[in-house]
């Protein structure tokens, strides 16, 4: 099973290129002190794994990585708790070379406070899949230490714009391991992941106006699913993957429609003389959040799919755009434009309170990580679009600065099943 996950993850892996500089600011309220010991076995692979796991855990702001200071236990029996004062858990392991360029990585997470093993697993993979193994180890360590599944093995999609060339890019959640799914001379917008992570719906202007396509990540095969007159845009998959909500102007204004995932069986959901756009399904699939200016300025609304009943959710000064549900369905993130700047903000549906998470800037298009702990969004540094994340509590922020190009429209992908 685990091996299957890895092979699925890496179905189109190419050698990783360090294209991003990651700058982290802030820290979690409580940082768990953890020590990572370089694994026994192949030194180059061991160092690579140590770097990947360390950087993954570090980016969350929830861990304090404690230098093992020369200690190199590889088995639990080698760990003497008295030598690890102040450290809550230590990660140890070993790498074993196998035939046909494969490696078996055995790793263990040892709880020094309770003197107990928290995790013990073996992952077998090709040597060139070290990044995926590292992310997998980090996911499990994160899960054991925080109680929530890690998202280091998940992927993100975004659009890069570089000297008039647009690329739809899929990358690891740390921005590394980029794959271009589509390259075009015309704009690309609004990538949206299918719930199983195997397909991406997006908007392409390659036929000189906005049309919606669905593309398979593994076969690269793509299907045009909406090319009505005017603009076809803002695709969003239903949680069961059977339907796609999208925005069409075929009847005049931008209105939200629901279609089967091949574009058929069209049904209109909103009926207004306003711009209704950016639909986002609730996790239970029963309603959609969307942006509308029906009240005079763009704000966030919710529509029930069953009876098309609409409710306004935000009453912010300024404008609210791009709502995306938290995976638990109890809150949503959006881009708030006020006094000339965009902030990333979270609105709690029960308390109806809005919390601003970022300092403000050219911050757009937020989406939650599938564990709900981080938010990915687009921002700008020195006039160039970059990726950034903020923890859901606003404490930990990171910017991922690409070496070139202008990055826009990011969307965090789902857990890979």
């Amino acid at each position, binding site marked *: 099973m685990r091996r299957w996950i890895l092979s699925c993850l890496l179905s189109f892996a190419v050698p990783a290129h360090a294209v991003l500089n990651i700058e982290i600011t802030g820290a979690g309220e409580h940082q768990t002190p953890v020590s990572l010991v370089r694994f026994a076995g192949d030194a180059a692979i061991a160092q690579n794994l140590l770097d990947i796991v360390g950087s993954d855990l570090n980016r969350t702001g929830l861990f304090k990585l404690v230098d093992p200071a020369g200690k190199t236990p590889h088995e639990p029996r080698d760990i003497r708790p008295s030598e690890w004062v102040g450290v809550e858990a230590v990660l140890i392991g070993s790498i074993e070379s196998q035939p046909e360029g494969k490696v078996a990585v055995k790793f263990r997470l040892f709880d020094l406070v309770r003197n107990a093993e928290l995790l013990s697993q073996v992952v077998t993979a090709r040597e060139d899949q070290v990044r995926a193994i590292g992310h997998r180890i980090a996911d499990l360590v994160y899960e054991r230490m925080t109680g929530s599944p890690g998202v280091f093995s998940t992927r993100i999609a975004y659009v890069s714009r570089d000297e008039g060339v647009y690329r739809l890019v899929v990358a690891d959640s740390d921005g590394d391991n980029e794959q271009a799914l589509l390259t075009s001379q015309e*704009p690309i917008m609004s990538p949206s992941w299918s719930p199983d992570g195997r397909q991406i719906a997006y908007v392409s202007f390659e036929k000189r106006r906005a049309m919606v396509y669905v593309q398979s990540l593994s076969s690269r095969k793509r299907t045009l699913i909406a090319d009505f007159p*005017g603009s076809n845009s*803002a695709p969003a998959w239903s949680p069961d993957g059977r339907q796609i909500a999208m925005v069409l102007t075929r009847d005049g204004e931008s209105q939200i429609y629901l279609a089967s995932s091949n574009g058929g069986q069209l049904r209109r959901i909103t009926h207004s003389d306003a711009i209704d756009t950016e639909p986002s399904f609730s996790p239970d699939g029963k309603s959609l959040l969307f942006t509308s200016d029906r009240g005079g300025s763009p704000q966030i609304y919710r529509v029930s799919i069953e009876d098309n009943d609409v409710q306004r959710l935000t009453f912010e000064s300024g404008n609210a755009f791009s709502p995306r549900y938290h995976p638990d369905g109890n809150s949503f993130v959006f881009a708030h434009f006020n006094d000339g700047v965009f902030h990333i903000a979270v609105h709690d549906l029960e308390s109806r309170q809005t919390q601003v998470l970022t300092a403000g800037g050219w911050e757009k298009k937020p989406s939650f990580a599938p564990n709900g702990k981080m938010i990915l969004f687009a921002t700008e540094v020195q006039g160039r679009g970059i990726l950034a994340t903020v923890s859901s509590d606003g404490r930990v922020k990171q910017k991922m600065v690409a070496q070139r190009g202008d990055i826009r429209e990011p969307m965090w992908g789902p857990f890979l099943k």
Partner: protein
Amino acid sequence: MNKLILSVLLLNLLAACSSNPPKEEVAEPAATSASAASEAPGAAAQETAAADTRAADAQAAADAQAALMEKNSVYFPFDVDAVQDADRETIMNHAEYLASHPDVKVRVEGNADERGSSEYNLGLGQRRANNTKRALVLGGASDSQIETVSYGEEKPRCSDHNEACWAQNRRADINYSAQ
């Protein structure tokens, strides 16, 4: 028929602003059309004089055409999609041209500045294009001559974060060479 030839030639001219087609090719059919519009029937008795007149008329028509095409954008205030009074003349000029050239087709392309989400701006650009089309149709153009599309904030003419730049990006272009 003459109008059709004229339109086709003008479109070719527009489409190829960088190249200069031989003068005769432009002048001849254009002059025929111009004479039909502005001269009394049978006025071409004196060939030399008529040729001069034709050339002059053709030049005038080409100039008028160039002037029309030079102003093919209308502009909008922030988050507004109604065509502004300031652009009434531009709209009327294009509406009249389209009315008198029923075979010409145009694309009205709506755009928005970056102060919104890309999807909202796509909707806003579409609305601007739709309203521009409505104004052209009210001015005499035919509905079937005009396609509307939106580029939202995706194709900014200017990419700085300031009002001077945004003002240029909040516009609809009447594009004759896109069909």
